[in-house]
């Protein structure tokens, strides 16, 4: 169901658990990390390939530039290579790796924004005028453009939740913040997206007030 799951092994049917976070997958990744700690380059390449696509997708959406995304991916795996020996299995391998990627991405995004390398929010973003419901592909394009209007922390929370399918607790571990902070970030992101894209709900202008707050 989640982003990479259409190209990667699926989890147990009915569990809603993406394949790359199933127990077997986590054990396999932990074993790879143990081999990497001993300098095994094959294991390193295998782990890199497992994560490259999902990280490239996530980061390219965030930065809108593959060269920046690639730099973040390689920075992340450079740390994985050097720190694999420090991984004790206290968290899932994917949470550990995404935690590194998150910090690198946030820093890269801020640095790029300062240098003007990141695309500015499209002020002219207009909802489609067609009366017909948006196809999923169109909606995806609109969402990606709308994400540029969100603060970076909210964008990352949206990506980690909708794109990569992490649970609230996992996102909190990745972002190193309380669970309630994750919920709050996503609450504000949802409200803002619905304000930008009222067509999301099918009824224009019905966005934020629907939270009942």
């Amino acid at each position: 169901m989640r982003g990479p799951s259409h190209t990667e092994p699926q989890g147990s049917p009915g569990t809603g658990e993406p394949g790359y976070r199933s127990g077997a997958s986590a054990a396999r990744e932990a074993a790879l990390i143990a081999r990497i700690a001993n300098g095994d380059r094959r294991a390193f390449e295998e782990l890199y390939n497992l994560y490259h696509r999902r990280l490239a997708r996530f980061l390219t959406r965030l930065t809108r530039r593959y060269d920046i995304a690639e730099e973040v991916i390689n920075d992340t795996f450079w740390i994985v290579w050097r720190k694999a020996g420090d991984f004790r299995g206290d968290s899932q391998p994917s949470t550990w790796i995404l935690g590194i990627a998150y910090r690198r991405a946030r820093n890269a995004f801020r640095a790029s924004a300062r240098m003007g390398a990141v695309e500015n929010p499209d002020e002219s973003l207009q909802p489609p005028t067609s009366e017909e419901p948006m196809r999923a592909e169109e909606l995806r394009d609109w969402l990606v453009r709308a994400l540029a209007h969100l603060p970076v922390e909210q964008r990352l929370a949206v990506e980690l939740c909708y794109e990569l399918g992490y649970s609230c607790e996992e996102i909190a571990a990745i972002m190193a913040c309380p669970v309630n902070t994750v919920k709050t970030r996503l609450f504000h992101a949802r409200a803002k997206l619905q304000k930008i894209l009222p067509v999301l709900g099918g009824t224009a202008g019905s966005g934020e007030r629907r939270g009942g707050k």
Partner: protein
Amino acid sequence: MMTVDERNEHQEVWLVLPWLASGRLDPSERERAEQHVRVCARCEEELALQQRMCGAFAEPDRVIYAPGPSFRKLMERIDAEAQADKRDVRAPQQPRLSPRGIAARLGHVALWRPPGAAWAASFLALFALTGLLTTAYRWSEPVYRTHTDSAEAIQNVLHIALDRSLTIAQVEELLRASGARVVEGPGSTGVFGVTPVGMQPGTSAVAVNRQLQRLATRLRADPRVLWVQPLAQDDTPVNQRAPAPPER
């Protein structure tokens, strides 16, 4: 109209709807959320929206980036850094010399230029070595102490050392018998300075010396006298000759 409890529950469920839509909600929380969604139209509508968003984000990418080139770049970076690390580790060691460098080192000592710290260390080492050698030389020399420690010697005085077990009365008897009177001492080493009894001021040096010679002969004859300052056989006054022999 919702009660406070219902409103709280609604808000709590509202916050977790993205994970209910993605199937990543904790089972216990999911059950409660699903129960609420069944009776709450707004949450039901929002859940449908969240499911659309999940579906939209799950749409396949138009562009898929192959990992190979990126991985090769990463490995080049790792290898380059490993080389740099090796160089850093080797740097503090003695640099490997080429034959030309060895020849230059052997033939031109001046090529070696120690850094400032090495200069300072060399200077301190030289200073310490000099001090050590001086001290060692002093220690190797015999230690001499003079019997007399007066800075200004009295003229025409004969120095003697007596047996220290003698009483004052015995010393007096010894001096009376030998015709000597004490004019100096005893010093820190127990040495007395004596002169012949009856020696008058203004006596010629030759006469004084003769009197001292005679006194020394009498004192040497007494076994209680341990040492008598040697006198030359010339007519030079006693204190104008070489000093008394040192005592080890």
